[in-house]
């Protein structure tokens, strides 16, 4: 019944309005932390505007205020050249502003179509006109040039498709300004390109897009304007033509703080971890790993590359023991560990950096001290079942010091740290015991440029101390920079093992299943379930 609203064309005349949405002198503090200081932002209608900066630079705080989730202490939000108070998201939605958060609000039990129209279904008197809904959905996806199977169940579609649906839902509800908080952080390269294409067509249709990203290449390729935030302040506004990647990175971290990145390679020694014909299924019983075999050597970084959903998550979980393998052999220094518990594997010398930092990597509600000591090695810090406070304090210092974590007090909750610092706690804890094998899954996901440098340094250090590092990453450049060898997974099988210095194109071919004598498979989107 309210489709009329959704179909309404953008009302603001691009020529008349200079600033579709923005900020004028906004400041916002949380206790002693000044998240935003006199921030100014001008987003012109019909443009894609990127907001970049380190973790903790104040990007998300600013976005929350632009969407009415939070209000400035000083200064104000600008909508259509006018200073206004956005008291709630409802007020923002009335001004046709929509926000896509990192955690998608997709209901897995419903179909994509149901997710799209939920809350604003076409029809009358409580009856939903599904034909009209389907028609609207198809028009919508056609107008922005994406192919979506609207009848598919949301649970069975990839995160990339879910994200597109979430964006289209905002459009369906009449949003003309779309704010996206790190939309490509969880996407594989191919999927990210697709998303950037979608954002471009939304802009071409006259809509305004603001997006936060740590990936400078995509920012430079798609944005019309770039605003750099550092320590809560606006540093500069640029256009992509004016600057290159290195220059932009320098603006983000300030002065000459760019971490020095040695591109040293490892010094592979003896085989430590040996996997043979590993197969496993996911939670829904779909086969995700099909006879994977590889070996990892002491003192090397073995990169694992794959398009999301091709089995890399399951492989990481099988290696540490969170997920059981359905068949295959796994051995550490020649000793079978495939039937061992996580606890026994860790005792034998495995360590694990989870891709899910918030749920598996850390206990966000517990203190930094608690997070630093949580492992089977806890026993070393205890006598007769009681923790020795001096031993605990020494271990906490060692872990936080090793990873150069910036923190206030070790009794602060882990949730009080920024994402990059949280990940350092994880890496410090996982490498303090000199593991034989370090399984690191997406260790730099959602971490800013400078933070990434530190994490790479910690990974190299673990390698140099003799660990076999198995690095899972969706960032090809990260894999190429760090890995001695890169193993490519495609549909749960090993598509090939390449030298660490292979080109993006060579790796990308294997990721898409284009082996020399294989037929041209399409990349898995998760719909093969």
């Amino acid at each position, binding site marked *: 019944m*309210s489709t009329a*609203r959704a179909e309404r064309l953008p009302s603001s005349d691009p020529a008349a309005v200079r600033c579709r949405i923005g900020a004028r002198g906004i400041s916002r503090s*949380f*206790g*002693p*932390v000044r998240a935003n200081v006199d921030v100014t932002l001008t987003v012109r209608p019909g443009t894609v505007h990127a907001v970049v900066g380190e973790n903790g630079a104040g990007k998300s705080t600013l976005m*929350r205020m632009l969407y*009415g*989730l*939070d*209000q400035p202490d000083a200064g104000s939000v600008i909508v259509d050249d006018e200073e206004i108070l956005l008291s*709630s*998201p*409802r007020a923002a*939605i009335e001004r046709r502003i*929509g*926000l896509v958060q990192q*955690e998608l*609000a997709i209901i897995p039990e419903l179909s994509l179509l149901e997710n799209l129209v*939920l*809350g*604003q279904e076409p029809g009358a008197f409580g009856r939903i006109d599904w034909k009209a809904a389907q028609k609207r959905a198809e028009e919508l996806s056609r107008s922005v040039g994406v192919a979506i199977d609207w009848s598919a169940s949301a649970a069975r579609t990839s995160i990339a498709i879910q994200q597109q649906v979430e964006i289209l839902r905002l459009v369906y509800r*009449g949003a003309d300004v779309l704010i996206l908080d790190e939309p490509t952080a969880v996407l594989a390269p191919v999927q990210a390109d697709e998303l950037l294409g979608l954002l471009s067509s939304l802009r071409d249709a006259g809509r305004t897009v603001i997006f936060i990203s740590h990936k400078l290449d995509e920012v430079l390729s798609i944005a019309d304007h770039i605003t750099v935030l550092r320590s809560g302040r606006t540093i500069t506004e640029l256009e992509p033509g004016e600057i290159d990647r290195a220059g932009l990175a320098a603006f983000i971290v300030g002065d000459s703080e760019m971490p020095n990145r040695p591109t040293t390679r490892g010094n592979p020694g003896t085989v430590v971890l040996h996997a043979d014909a590993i197969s496993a299924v996911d939670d829904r019983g779909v086969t995700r790993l099909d006879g994977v075999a590889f070996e990892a050597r002491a003192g090397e970084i073995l990169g694992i590359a794959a398009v999301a959903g091709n089995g890399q998550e399951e492989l990481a979980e099988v290696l*540490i023991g*969170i997920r059981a393998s359905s068949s295959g052999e796994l051995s550490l220094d020649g000793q079978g560990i495939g039937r061992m*518990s*996580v*606890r*026994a*594997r*860790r005792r034998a010398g495995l360590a*694990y950096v*989870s891709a*899910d930092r918030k*749920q*598996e*990597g*850390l*206990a*966000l*509600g*517990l203190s930094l001290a*608690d997070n630093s*000591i*949580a*492992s*089977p090695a*806890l*026993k070393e810090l*205890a006598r007769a*079942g*009681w*923790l020795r*406070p001096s031993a605990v304090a020494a271990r906490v210092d060692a872990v936080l010091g090793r990873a150069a974590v910036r923190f*206030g*007090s070790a*009794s*602060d*909750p882990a949730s*009080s740290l920024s994402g990059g610092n949280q990940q350092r706690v994880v890496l410090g804890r996982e490498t303090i015991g000199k593991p034989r094998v370090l399984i690191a899954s997406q260790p730099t996901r959602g971490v800013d440029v400078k933070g990434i440098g530190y994490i790479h340094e910690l990974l190299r250090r673990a390698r140099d101390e003799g660990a076999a590092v198995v690095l899972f990453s969706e960032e090809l450049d990260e894999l190429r920079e760090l890995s001695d060898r890169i193993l490519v997974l495609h549909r749960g099988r090993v598509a090939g093992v390449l030298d660490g210095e292979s080109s993006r194109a060579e790796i990308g071919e294997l990721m898409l299943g284009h082996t020399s004598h294989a037929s041209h498979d399409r990349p898995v989107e998760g719909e093969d379930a």
Partner: protein
Amino acid sequence: MTGTATQGAPVAPEPTEASTPVGRRAATALGRVARHAGVPVVLALAIGALVLAVTGNDPLEVYGRLLSEAFGTPSRINATLAATTPILFTAVAAAFAYRAGAFTVGVEGSFVLGGLTASVIGSQMADVPPVLSVLLPLLGATIAGGLVAVIPGILRAWWGVDEVVTTLMFNFIVTGLAGWSVQSFFLAKGQANSSTEYVTENAELPALAPPGQTSIGLVIGLVILIAYAVWMRYSTLGFEFRAVGSAPRFSAAQGLRVKTVLATALIGAGVIGGIGGGSHALGLVHRYSEGFSANFGFTGIAIALLARFNPIGILVGAILFGALNSAGATVQLFIDLPVQIIDVLQGTVMIFAVAVFTLPKLRRLRAARAEWKRP
């Protein structure tokens, strides 16, 4: 909406200078507990006042009378502490399991079977030397209380069977078994109602201040409360309890002893509940009879939630509910007041305790759903 926004803000370190870290930590924890626990209690009193006013009573008069009946004289304080003792045990028992994220409702069953076991053993202590005559029944109560929770504990830890369902079912099983075994085996001679023989005099827990009813059981309860506090903070397994309770997936990925923790949490809660039942039998009622537990196990749940598992909060909560019980029993001697009003008050505190407990979660949910709202 601003409330949710500030919730996400970084926590500022407390600017107290002179106090030690431990002292400061205790102070902030206490302040938090007071804030969380104060709200439900005040809300419940307000609703109680409304009910009293509607039923034609003067709320202030009733509350004043309740206060004086609970704490007015040394003998009334003694009565309040006697009523506090059983729920102190059940509250610590519940908190012990909840810290590990195991939501047991089976403390009631452990309390009942512990009480029956202590009564039966206690009635046979005539020729047993002192001290041992108390320890043997208490040991029996401890084992019995733990046994009640063994099957739910194993089912939860190794098979992931929901502990709420199993412990609730075991309450029914245990209460039925207890009633049947009293009727069949332990019925006191010449008793019309179904109760066991009184325990022998040397098996009774001595009163702290005769003729008041508060016994050494209160001291046992306090010792267990302190042990609970120290163990949770400083023992290895206590650390793992907190980790598993606060972040189960993290604990599994770190290789912590998740199964051991869950089984220990449930069985340990049963053990503490069993000792509570034993102390109640030996210290106050001196036998087991039908209606031995006035839902002490469930009152303990409310106290544990109200206190957020904080030891001092548990003590204060147990005294609060103890006061309501002891004063509620006698206040009708002075005021024409339906005894059910006390149940209403207790029930309201419990509802608000649980409601406030889940409030932060609801707020987050609401924030997440804000964008779903129809424009």
